[in-house]
């Protein structure tokens, strides 16, 4: 027996059950809207995603911004750490879920991953569009108040520690999204990119653009982290499926790429 008092509290979802089965929903409402009776056929996927996360319908500008973000993030490409993780599932014949779990585990991180976006959004929350505050936070990054399972950040979030200059797709993305900047953060980023890069000594990364875009959508860092994880999965899945077909023989194995520095056969104990 279920404890009568125990329920799932939610602002997102309401259900009415079918008359013949309390475990089957007749109507499902998302933030008050009948999903299958009203929204289906009327709204785009991005409008629905926005509604799910913010509980309000987006303006046309917000919807286009989210759609732009989703296209930019949909496929990080086969060199990306998270997509490589997914493809390793494909080449070895692992399950679809295994490839996506692998992509999420790797793509959650602080270099190019969702945690970096979360931290960059926290920087935005602290600095807004005030250059002086950005310079301060870049030169004196905040330390976490408590130890965590996450390692310490090794670079300014939103910038690329291995970059030579800002890559063209990052510039193109910023350029496009800044035309849809409801709160002006993306436009400010575009105008101040050079100055910020001078202080970080690193070029702007895609994570920095996306963080600004999520802030423009009024999302919280935890919401941005979640959406970033979610919106990068399509490419991971597609590449995993493709590599399953190619097979492991055609996938890099780095046969000669690893050097063992303490091989007992070449370094016998003295």
């Amino acid at each position, binding site marked *: 027996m279920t404890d009568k008092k125990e329920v799932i509290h939610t602002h997102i979802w309401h259900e009415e059950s079918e008359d013949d089965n*309390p*475990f089957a929903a007749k109507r499902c409402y998302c933030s008050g809207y009948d999903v299958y009776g009203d929204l289906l056929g009327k709204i785009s996927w991005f409008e629905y995603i926005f509604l799910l996360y913010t509980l309000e319908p987006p303006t046309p500008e917000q919807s286009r911004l989210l759609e732009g973000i989703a296209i930019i993030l949909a496929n990080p490409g086969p060199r990306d750490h998270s997509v490589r993780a997914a493809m390793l599932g494909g080449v070895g014949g692992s399950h679809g879920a295994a490839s996506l779990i692998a992509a999420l585990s790797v793509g959650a991180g602080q270099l190019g991953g969702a945690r970096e976006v979360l931290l960059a959004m926290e920087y935005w929350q602290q600095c807004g569009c005030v250059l002086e505050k950005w310079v301060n936070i870049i030169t004196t990054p905040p330390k976490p108040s408590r130890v965590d399972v996450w390692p310490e950040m090794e670079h300014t979030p939103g*910038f690329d520690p291995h970059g030579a200059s800002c890559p063209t797709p990052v510039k193109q993305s910023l350029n496009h999204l800044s035309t849809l900047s409801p709160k002006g953060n993306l436009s400010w980023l575009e105008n101040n990119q050079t100055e910020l890069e001078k202080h970080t000594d690193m070029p702007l990364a895609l994570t920095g653009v996306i963080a600004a875009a999520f802030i423009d959508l009024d999302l919280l860092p935890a919401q941005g982290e979640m959406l970033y994880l979610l919106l990068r999965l399509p490419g991971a899945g597609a590449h995993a499926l493709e590599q399953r077909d190619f097979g492991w023989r055609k996938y890099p194995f780095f046969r000669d790429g690893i050097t063992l520095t303490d091989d007992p056969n070449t370094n016998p104990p003295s």
Partner: protein
Amino acid sequence: MASPKSLLEAENNWKTAMGLSFPGERVVIRGKDLFTDLKDMRWMELLLFGITGRYFSDEEIKLFEGIWVLCTSYPDPRVWNNRVASLAGTARSTATLALSGANALSEAELYGRKPDIRAYEFLVRCEKILKLEQLNLEEIVKQELNAHRAIPGYGRPIVNKDERINPLIDLLHKLNFENGIYLDLAFNIESALLTGRWRMKMNIAAPIAAIAADRGLSRNEFYNYMCLCFTGGMLPCFQDASDKMEGTFLPISCSKISYEGKNLRSW
């Protein structure tokens, strides 16, 4: 300006002392041959050797293994991470996917690895402060409570008493590991909390962090050692739900969704 120099140097070039396999021949782990040097190791011994590169005495390995037994996740599907394993079972997913999800949950704020490493960090910090005689124990405890409203390793969300402490103390007695700088400190902190007005008892994170520190594990080594500890309780939950009729693990009817959002409206 940053540059890709480090990436260019590392392309197809990874130098490691951790190990490598030579298919059809041999396997090296941290400079030792798995099939000759390490073949008689216990699994816990191999795990700790892989994490730390160090050897531990038989008694220490019994202690580390004993901690895994006492601190595993109980086969109680009410516990959040175990419930993931049960849900995977009832939804007819696989055991490995069940463990992936359930283990991923296990570095939570409320339980698992985050409290573990925070307890470790608190004990080490506490010991340093006491050594420098900057503050006494009561003052440290007050300061920590003012900063975080909690002492890592002390108190528990559901019940104050931790049933794992006494069996752990028995194990420590059996193996003659009753004392250690950090273990003694862990008990002294509990005494300070109980004699003060806080009435917080030690939970298992404090003594196991203390034991790890006393046995020379760094914070990260302790974290890595504990990563898979909960697995023991997850598999029975998965198995149980897998063995029973699909979909019957604690189903939730529509009426158990308590909607507290916007009124019904049209798009």
